[in-house]
């Protein structure tokens, strides 16, 4: 292991940013806090993006590791102990100064502090606590803090950190326990789920406290999140969505993030290196489906099944669902209830609520829908306005699908390259990787 003592601040920041960049979440949403007039900082419920990096991802928080030294040897991780890279650590003071000075200049919305495991989980959690305590009390920082709960750390320590942070996360790392065993031999599913449950229970207790005493200190007010790596192990989209769904239900998570696997290490247990790059389209489809779970009352079993375990490359999950369930369509926008509208491709939850309100005061036309933010080129095949469809369309899966594709529906660029005519439209395409699409890490 290389440890260099005389690194400049610039080099340190460079190393510990580089080591932290594969963590997905850079969100600053989920809580709002007013400044009490004594310190610096506040939080906005919606979160704020401060910049966007060259990969199109949002920069909202100062995302750094406390240290990139690590006693573990996770095969996918750039910081695994067997990698020969320069190791360094921040001091709590350095973290405080950087955060405060960046925040003053409005570079960031707050701090995202993660860490390699230095000596032991407890020791690392202690260091993180020291840094956050100083930042919150001595520096009077009232902006957003996202911090990792280290699996294996003492529960009391995690609890104390939770009262300083806005959001905590424990990374699930991989979708199944078997994969975890192969790629992260020092971690177990149980070790990861323990702190997750701890934070969940802490939040529940805190809710009851807050109901009694409005000014009681708040525990992880922006909730907890997790992330898993996609494409390093053989799980299907269906398995991943089921895991995601149960995390929302059983652990009351705020967000589940997916991270397309990026090759940083050579290891026999990792998929063979190819020219295709990270599986970005697959990641994109998973995020779309995740939205359907959280905001659109869909269930994983409706979107995928054992027989059809992966998402369609050509259509987003909602469109794909609609094409397979034409018996629910077309719906009349002037009558259909909110939940039905939510299921129409091209109608989002915001436009659905606008529709429900606006039609009380007048009959809606296609023109009105467009102004309300409905994506008509997708929605027209599934709706009627006053009983009429916008164009006469043969109402079959095949014909609507062809229309959708012909109407300039934006296809993922790699699908265009591989010549989608060759694919049968509803083929269950195995995702290779390199099917690139937009980064969608918006707050």
């Amino acid at each position, binding site marked *: 292991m290389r440890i260099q003592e005389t690194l400049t601040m610039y080099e340190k920041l460079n190393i510990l940013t580089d080591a932290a960049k594969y963590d997905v979440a850079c969100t600053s949403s989920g809580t709002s806090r007013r400044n009490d007039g004594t310190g610096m900082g506040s939080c906005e419920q919606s979160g704020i993006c401060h910049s966007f990096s060259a990969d*199109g991802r949002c920069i909202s928080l100062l995302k750094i590791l406390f240290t990139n030294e690590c006693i573990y040897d996770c095969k996918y991780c750039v910081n695994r102990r067997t990698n020969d890279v320069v190791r360094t650590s921040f001091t709590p003071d350095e973290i405080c100064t950087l955060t405060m000075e960046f925040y003053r200049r409005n570079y960031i919305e707050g701090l995202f502090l993660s860490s390699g495991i230095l000596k032991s989980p407890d020791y690392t959690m202690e260091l993180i606590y020291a840094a956050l305590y100083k930042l919150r009390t001595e520096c009077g920082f009232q902006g957003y803090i996202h911090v990792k709960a280290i699996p294996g750390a003492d529960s009391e320590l995690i609890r104390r950190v939770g009262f300083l942070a806005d959001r905590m996360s424990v990374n699930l790392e991989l979708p199944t326990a078997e994969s975890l065993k192969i790629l992260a031999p020092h971690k177990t599913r149980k070790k990861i789920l323990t702190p997750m449950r701890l934070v969940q229970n802490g939040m529940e207790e805190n809710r009851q406290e807050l109901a009694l005493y409005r000014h009681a200190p708040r525990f992880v007010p922006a909730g907890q999140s997790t992330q898993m790596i996609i494409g390093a192990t053989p799980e299907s989209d269906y398995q991943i969505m089921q895991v995601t769904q149960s995390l929302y239900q059983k652990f009351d998570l705020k967000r589940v993030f997916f991270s397309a696997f990026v090759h940083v290490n050579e290891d026999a247990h990792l998929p063979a290196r190819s020219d295709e790059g990270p599986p970005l389209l697959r990641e994109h489809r998973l995020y779309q489906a995740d939205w359907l779970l959280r905001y659109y009352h869909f269930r994983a079993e409706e979107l995928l099944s054992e027989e059809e375990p992966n998402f369609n490359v050509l259509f987003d999950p909602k469109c794909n669902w609609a094409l397979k369930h034409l018996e629910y369509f077309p719906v009349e926008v002037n009558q259909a209830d909110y939940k039905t509208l939510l299921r129409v491709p091209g109608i989002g939850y915001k436009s659905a609520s606008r529709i429900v309100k606006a039609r009380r005061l007048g009959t809606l036309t296609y023109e009105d829908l467009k102004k309300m933010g409905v994506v008509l080129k997708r929605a027209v095949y599934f709706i009627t306005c006053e009983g009429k469809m916008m164009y006469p369309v043969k109402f079959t899966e095949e014909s609507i699908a062809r229309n959708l594709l012909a109407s300039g529906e934006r296809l993922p660029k790699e699908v265009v390259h591989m010549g989608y005519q060759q694919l049968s439209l509803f083929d269950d395409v195995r995702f290779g990787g390199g099917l690139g699409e937009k980064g969608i890490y918006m707050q």
Partner: protein
Amino acid sequence: MKKVYICSDSATGIFSGIYEAWRRKDQQDSGIALAGHVEPELFCTYEEVEENREKAAAVDRMICRHLGGTAYQEISQAVLSDDPGRGDAILGTMMEARHIPDSRRIMEHLTHPDVEKVFELSRRVGAEAHALKGFVRFRELKGGILCAVIRPKSQVLPCLAPHFEERLPKENWMIYDKSHRMFAVHESGRRWVVVWAEESCLEEFCLEELEVSEQEKRYEKLWRGFCETISISEREDKKAQAQHLPFRFRPYMTEFSQGG
């Protein structure tokens, strides 16, 4: 005959115009035009509005009282946009509110063209203000004052100033809106104010020449380094970056300018 009230391109101007139009008996036949954007029509008389804060405040109160909080917020935002027809749209929205059963629900009435326009303008202003809450970059001057320059399409300073006052209550800061020649100024522990720059003083005011503090360059360098390192090269997607962070914002952002 139709009567068009001509007012200046400002919130006070437009609200004063609406005040005059509202006082007139036959409001259906009134319009608001901004000085410099008047399109002469036949059978129409024009009147220049005498603007003042009292008239504007009266309209402000009326909207707040009769149309409710949501509409008030949407209208206050729409009036900051750069659309020359916004005065007409706001007046039209206020008039339409009298014709629906519950005038507090006027902003839900999106099938009405004026309401729809106010909604759209407000959304546009809100989006720009929200983006700038993130994209504003302060530089520390000698003496510790934080100073930022923006060049927005809409007059977003009234949206930004309360945000930064909340966030940086103990700092002295100012934001200069280059498009509309306005400053938002905040003194530590006090309330923010917006001031219009006089032509003559603008000549002297050139931010690029203001001297920054000793450590300013150091933090700028650290920030540029951070932004470069945080990007994952295997995922590079400049198109997505440009979509979320349009080029027009970049000249005033530390990470997109060269450090001298």
